[in-house]
């Protein structure tokens, strides 16, 4: 149409790319499952605190109000007990989503490391016994009992880097 000449490439474009990299770096990511768990963690803490506060308030109400013992019982049942229940739920949530994260991590890591080590042992033995002289240690044979891995093309990722 009118102007087919290209704008000159300049420092401005590099700056644009740089800015893009920074923007992407600062982007808040959501949607990963870790995010949901963080929320539960927060809810757990909030419930814990709210429950304790409610329990205390309930106890104070009992102390200050209610002429008759029946009234006091009612308040206790409805205020303090509810507070304690909330606190327990909150604590449970907190434990579930804080501890579990790390337990799971260690589990995966242990599984993975043990598997990697098994692979290396097998590879070493094979190498040593001359079964597969060219086979690099990085080609883990599938465990015999395991079902076949999902179809893997050229996209199959390289085995986990060692060290």
């Amino acid at each position, binding site marked *: 149409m009118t102007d087919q000449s290209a704008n000159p490439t300049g420092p401005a474009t590099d700056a644009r790319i740089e800015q893009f990299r920074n923007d992407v770096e600062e982007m808040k990511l959501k949607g990963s499952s870790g995010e949901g*768990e963080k929320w539960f963690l927060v809810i757990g803490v909030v419930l814990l605190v709210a429950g304790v506060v409610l329990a205390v308030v309930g106890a104070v109400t009992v102390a200050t109000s209610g002429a008759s013992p029946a009234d006091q019982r009612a308040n206790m049942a*409805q205020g303090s007990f509810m507070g304690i229940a909330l606190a327990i739920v909150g604590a449970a949530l907190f434990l579930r989503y804080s501890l579990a994260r*790390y337990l799971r991590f260690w*589990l*995966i890591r242990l599984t993975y490391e043990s598997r990697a080590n098994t692979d290396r042992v097998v590879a070493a*033995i094979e190498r040593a016994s001359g079964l597969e002289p060219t086979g690099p240690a990085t080609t883990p044979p599938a465990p015999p009992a395991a079902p076949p891995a*999902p179809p893997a093309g050229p996209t199959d*990722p390289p085995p986990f880097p060692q060290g």
Partner: protein
Amino acid sequence: MDKFLTFTVAGLSTAAIYAVAASGLVVTYTTSGIFNFAHGAFGMLAAFLFWQVSQGWGWPLWLSVVVVVFVAAPLFGALVERVIMRGIEGASEVVKIVVTVSLMVALLGLATVIWPQDIARPVPPFFEGRFVELAGVRVAWSRLLTMAIAVGVAVGLRLLFTRTRLGIAMRAVVDDRSLLQLNGGRPGRTAMLAWGLGAGLAAVSGVLIAPEQTLSAITLTLLVVNTYAVAVVGRLRSLPGAFLGAVILGLAQSYATGYVNQTASIGPISLQNLPAALPAIMLFIVILLQPEARLRAHGVSRPRTALRVPSQTTAVVGGVALVLVVAALGALMAPSDLSLVTKGVGFALITLSLVPLTGYAGQISLAQMTFVGIGALAMVTWGATGSPVGVAISVAVCAVVGAVVALPALRLSGIYLALATAAFALFCTSMVFNQQEIIPGGSLQVPPLSVGPFEVTNDYRQLLLFAVTFAVLANLIVLVRRSSLGRRLTAMKDSPVACATLGLNLTATKVGVFAMSAAIAGLGGALAGRTFSPDEFSLPSSLPVTMLAVVGGIGSVAGAFIGGLLLGAVPIGATFFAANAIGVFRFVTLPMADLLAVAPGLMGISLGREPDGAAPQVAAGYRAVGQSPPALATTAAGLVGLWIAARAGVIPKWSFVAALGVFVLSVVPLLPLLFAPVDPAAEHSAAPPRRVATAVWMVVATLFAALFPWADAISSNGYRLLVILLVVFLSARVAIGLSGVTPEALRRPVVPSPDLVGTDRPLTRSDAMDAARAIGISEDEFAAAGPDPVLEAELATMGARVGNR
């Protein structure tokens, strides 16, 4: 001349309110594709809140306006979008309509609970007592203010939608949601803002209308229904069209008030209520003028679940069983309970009328009770002796009226049919059922049926009549579903365009189904044999019928029955628990009756998550029961036994509720197991020890629930109800364990969990990375796990050893 000017000003002021309300409706519809039937209820809530804040709590006027219009309403609208509407985005039109209608009913119930109709709640007009002289006519400042606000809203919306990025994005999201995302817009947030804006506009209209009316939840909600007619002028999408419609309607209503002789009448219909009927008339005219909707080929999406069509044998057996059970139960009931139950089964007949229309053909009607009323009226007129000829005439009249009402709207999309039927209900209420000449004394006594020697002389016979009619009609409908017509209706629901290219006249077919549906509803009215008040034929009475029919599972006859019983259960429950209330702490006490008033609406809203309704799920769990005659018999016997025990005063009311829950949910599904022939090869067959365990469990669970002194052990009603629910739930879980079969509804899809990775198949690098990412560990951190030095050394020496050999 003065008179003309006066009425013009009054009309323009009404028009201004309509315009504001309608623009809110158009904003939400264009941005989300959901026609908000609850729009009027939004405005109604705002009006009440405004009264509460300004009159109840005595806050300054300006602050009240700000709080209601600019804070509470928009937040509420955004909340509704986020919590309810986002879930039904891709749902069928029927579900969309039912969910918003349910929201309207729920809000109505809520308003009645919070602001009971016990006192008058006057709201003084703005600038009270201040007038301005215009061409010799005194015009209140408040009217000028109203008009000024409408103009302001018009200008504001115009600017918003053409000048601001947010407004343009609201229009863009309709065009192409994902393209908006690719541009960087956030459709979810845009939709929330649009709903907030819509609710804000509803609030403006509510606050403006509050001083002009006595605050009544139903009147206010329905008043804003008038805006449907206004919005239709702009084909529900155009703001200028809506404003034009508002002016036409406002002026027409005002002139009708001023110039139509209130005492004049056309035949038996007096013109006194003409202004109230004008919106409905206008809606019909506008719909008539609309060009036919274009057919579209979308490509057919796969249905969520294909509904099973019952065999005719099942239908016949079911019908006979229904009649027998109803007859047995009815014989045992006290007169007061009997009349309630009779009503409930009568409702089932009316929900049944929606099965061919909504379930098979995918169309919706919001005026079923109006057809009941027409049927009843025709019966009174032509069958005063209770003769079957009168019934036949009633049915025919309803079919014809139904066809005439539906014809114009059926050429357009489903939403117009919903609007047209709603308008028809309003029209009939004001022009027919509220006319002294037509229903003298404000009550309509439908003569009980009398066919030769069989006369319906009491409630029990009435109940039998309903049960037999339901059974027969249900069988006919199943027959229709299995016939060529049923296949055609299903096909039409699946792909209208394909049907048209095969030579099916879509409009004629739909009109036929609508007429059939109206006829069945009319039959329900003609056979009712009781006294109706005109209120029962109004729009607010029709809405729960449609809602609960869809909740019950409109695709099947059984679903209609469940829906009808749910509908009947509300008044039964309200009577049963009339004196009870649920206390939450000691701050709030909710009467059960109030909770039940909100319940149907909440059930309808829950459809957003279960669009197929309850029946298919329940049916899956109980199908085996229906196939085992001894199980069926035991079920009936158990229910009757419990009922007798309750009636005889052996077990108290609460125990009856608990035992009923336990019996129905955890005993009945196990019965087939108990009676199944012993076949070691069969999957669900049970070995004798398991049978004994099952039988023992059944007896223990039921007896425990029936004999536990609920009322004495737990003093608060609320806690008692919770504990009973818990017991019922636990017993159902045990039942599931015993039968070893997980009900369909409890089955969850298997989602691969990061916890399992590496244990069920070889761990790949991307699995490990996925897992690591899931718990927030970076790639580098993960890779840092170095080789084990001990193992490394071991390997080295091993390698050396082997190598040396």
